């Protein structure tokens, strides 16, 4: 019994130290992030709080699929649309944008710190255009700086992009208009294939008209580079190896499997598979957010001080999940600290009663926990039910405020049950362990009795 308690005590202290370390506002070494987020791609391995738009300022848009009469939207359509929207958002060069599918036919887009929200929203809704573009010979190429991700002007769309629109996208040849050989309209299908060495590539099929154009063109341009371009951004710039007359071709190159898959999706659905319309939109000025952060942090510190372990555990969870912090989210967190206090009050009140009824201290201590537990569990469970309903509500409508509040409250309630029962009990046992009963009586002050 005793050695087990020491074990649990050690575990709690370790847990607390790890939580403090994760929650601390310091620069964490890369290996820690790699260890904690091993299942995530490297760019998502961040140990920073995710701040919601109301705290950072920015624009949130809820897009809804608007299918043509008779068209049915599948989950695959929505996923394809999300990939395309995400690519467009990424092209804006914002820090930590968010693109997520909400419910069955909606996509939520959060663009923090976007300078020109009106134009950005317009960009998102555009239906994309896939093109095959002539770049010229691959040996002694006149345009060596054309690579994946470059912006090119084409005869199909020779618009000169604005500086802010480009963001991080390079635009190596702003004065050149490249010739569009064929548009995505002639593309029938594109899938991932593996060559004889097991390397992934993309196989595509063309319509009859496309096969004709492509056959004529490739016969005359073997060895040249033909770029595949979506919304004027180069997806891939492969070399024409042989004439493609059958209406089927392959693009090979140094692709990772995932890369090839995403490229195939983008080729297939160059245009959005379904038109999107804006059904909900919010822009929040950054100054409004900054004020609120300051104000909320003041309030938060005051409340959190009392429950240090509890709070750090929560904060660590927020970073790990990760949970996006919003104002209502912070409110949910603070309220849940109230739950943690409540659980402790229930236990301590119960212990005092058991003592008053003449139980010896140590058994009063244990009884306090077992008896209070039914109350704590039953009462917190009803809160969890409500949170679950609110989370479903928030998810469907992209109501991030509701979602944030409910998620934070639910995490807080769960953690509070853990801290109240495991952490408090272990601490109390450690204090009272192994003492003789006379010495115990003098320690009653610990319980305030």
């Amino acid at each position: 019994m005793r050695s087990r308690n020491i074990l649990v005590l050690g575990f709690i202290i370790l847990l607390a130290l790890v939580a403090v370390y994760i929650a601390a506002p310091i620069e964490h070494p890369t290996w820690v992030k790699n260890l904690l987020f091993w299942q995530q791609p490297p760019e998502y391995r961040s140990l920073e709080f995710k701040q919601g738009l109301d705290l950072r300022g920015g624009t949130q848009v809820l897009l809804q699929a608007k299918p043509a009469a008779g068209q049915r939207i599948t989950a695959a359509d929505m996923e394809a649309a999300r990939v395309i929207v995400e690519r467009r958002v990424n092209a804006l060069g914002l820090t930590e944008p968010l693109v997520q599918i909400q419910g069955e036919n909606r996509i939520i887009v959060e663009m923090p710190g976007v300078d020109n929200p009106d134009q950005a929203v317009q960009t998102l809704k555009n239906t994309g255009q896939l093109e095959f573009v002539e770049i010229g010979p691959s040996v002694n190429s006149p345009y060596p700086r054309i690579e994946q991700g470059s912006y090119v002007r084409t005869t199909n769309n020779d618009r000169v992009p604005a500086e802010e629109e480009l963001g991080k996208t390079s635009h190596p040849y702003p004065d050149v208009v490249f010739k569009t050989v064929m548009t995505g309209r002639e593309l029938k299908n594109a899938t991932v294939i593996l060559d004889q060495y097991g390397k992934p590539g993309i196989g595509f099929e063309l319509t009859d008209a496309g096969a004709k154009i492509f056959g004529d063109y490739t016969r005359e341009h073997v060895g040249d580079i033909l770029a595949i371009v979506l919304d004027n951004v180069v997806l891939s710039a492969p070399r024409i190896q042989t004439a493609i007359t059958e209406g089927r071709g392959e693009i090979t190159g140094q692709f990772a499997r995932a890369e090839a898959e995403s490229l195939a999706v983008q080729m297939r659905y160059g245009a959005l598979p379904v038109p999107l319309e804006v059904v909900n939109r919010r822009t929040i000025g950054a100054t409004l957010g900054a004020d609120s952060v300051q104000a909320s942090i003041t309030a938060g510190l005051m409340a959190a001080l009392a429950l240090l372990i509890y709070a750090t555990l929560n904060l660590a969870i927020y970073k790990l999940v990760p949970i996006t912090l919003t104002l209502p989210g912070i409110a949910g967190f603070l309220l849940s600290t109230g739950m943690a206090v409540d659980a402790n009050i229930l236990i301590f009140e119960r212990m005092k009663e058991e003592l008053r009824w003449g139980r010896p201290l140590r058994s009063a201590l244990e009884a306090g926990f077992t008896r209070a537990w039914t109350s704590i569990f039953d009462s917190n469970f009803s809160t969890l039910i409500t949170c679950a309903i609110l989370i479903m509500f928030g998810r469907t409508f992209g109501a991030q405020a509701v979602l944030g509040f409910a998620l934070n409250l639910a995490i807080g309630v769960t953690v509070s049950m853990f801290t109240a029962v495991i952490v408090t009990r272990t601490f109390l046992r450690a204090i009272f362990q192994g003492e003789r009963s006379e010495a115990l009586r003098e320690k009653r002050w610990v319980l305030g009795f």
Partner: protein
Amino acid sequence: MFRIVEHRRWYFLLSLLIIVPGLIAMIYSTATVGRPFKVAIDFTGGAIWELSFDQPILPTDLREIFVNAGLTDTDVTTVGDGKTAQVRLKPIDEDQKVALMAAIKAKYGANVSEVQFALVGPAIGSEVTQAAILAVFAASIAITIFLVIAFRKVPHPVRYGVSAVIGMVHDILVTLGIFSVLSILLGWEADALLLTALLTVISFSVQDKIVVFDRIRENTAKYRGELFRVIVNRSLLETLHRSLATQLNALFIMAALLIFGGATIRQFIAVMFIGLISGTYSSIFNAVPILVSWEERDLLGTKNVGATSA
């Protein structure tokens, strides 16, 4: 022993005194504007555009721009020093918005900046409304079922469920009633966060009741032969300390949020503050006394006036 449940008619009266004005406000409001309280664009659809200018402006001047663009159903108010304007209008698309902004800048100079802009499509607005009502019902039913299951071993588990639901309805009515009054007086608008506050109030209210019920459950087994009303009184007193400590704690947190927490969630916190007080009150003074009323078939506790505890 201090007797609580015997005086229940006075507590019910106090509840009525708070609920009835709220109901009147809701009825008045429904009669005049068609809804029990002002409703934000979350539920109706529409747009809110907050703009800040480098000089004080007149709402009517700004409104003219919108009317000229064909948006006659536009409402403009200025906030604070008159340099910030809130514009409420029908949903507009990006092109309209750009054109309107150009017109505004043409009139007031280039130093106009957008503080915030929110747009909710009308279809999604009504969908949100339906889902909100559904959420409240689903939460209430799920909690009632949970209560009946949790208390299945005590005699009459349904009574506990129903009493908790009555307490819950009490809290909803108090919260919405006061909200309706504040909506008329201060122009508060119900948004998605009001729904969140309401559901939180419900779950906190039930949480509070469960703690007392749990004690009654335990004491019923412990003090067999005692009158139910005495057991209930005892349970109330035993848990009173905890109820007050917990509620005061939560109220302190919310007071801190109200004072320091920034303007955007002030209304949300205020609603929760009201609901929480109501929740504590309805646990001690409504839900638990109703259990006794039911046991004794005596709603107002008038039959046993003066009777001493056993």
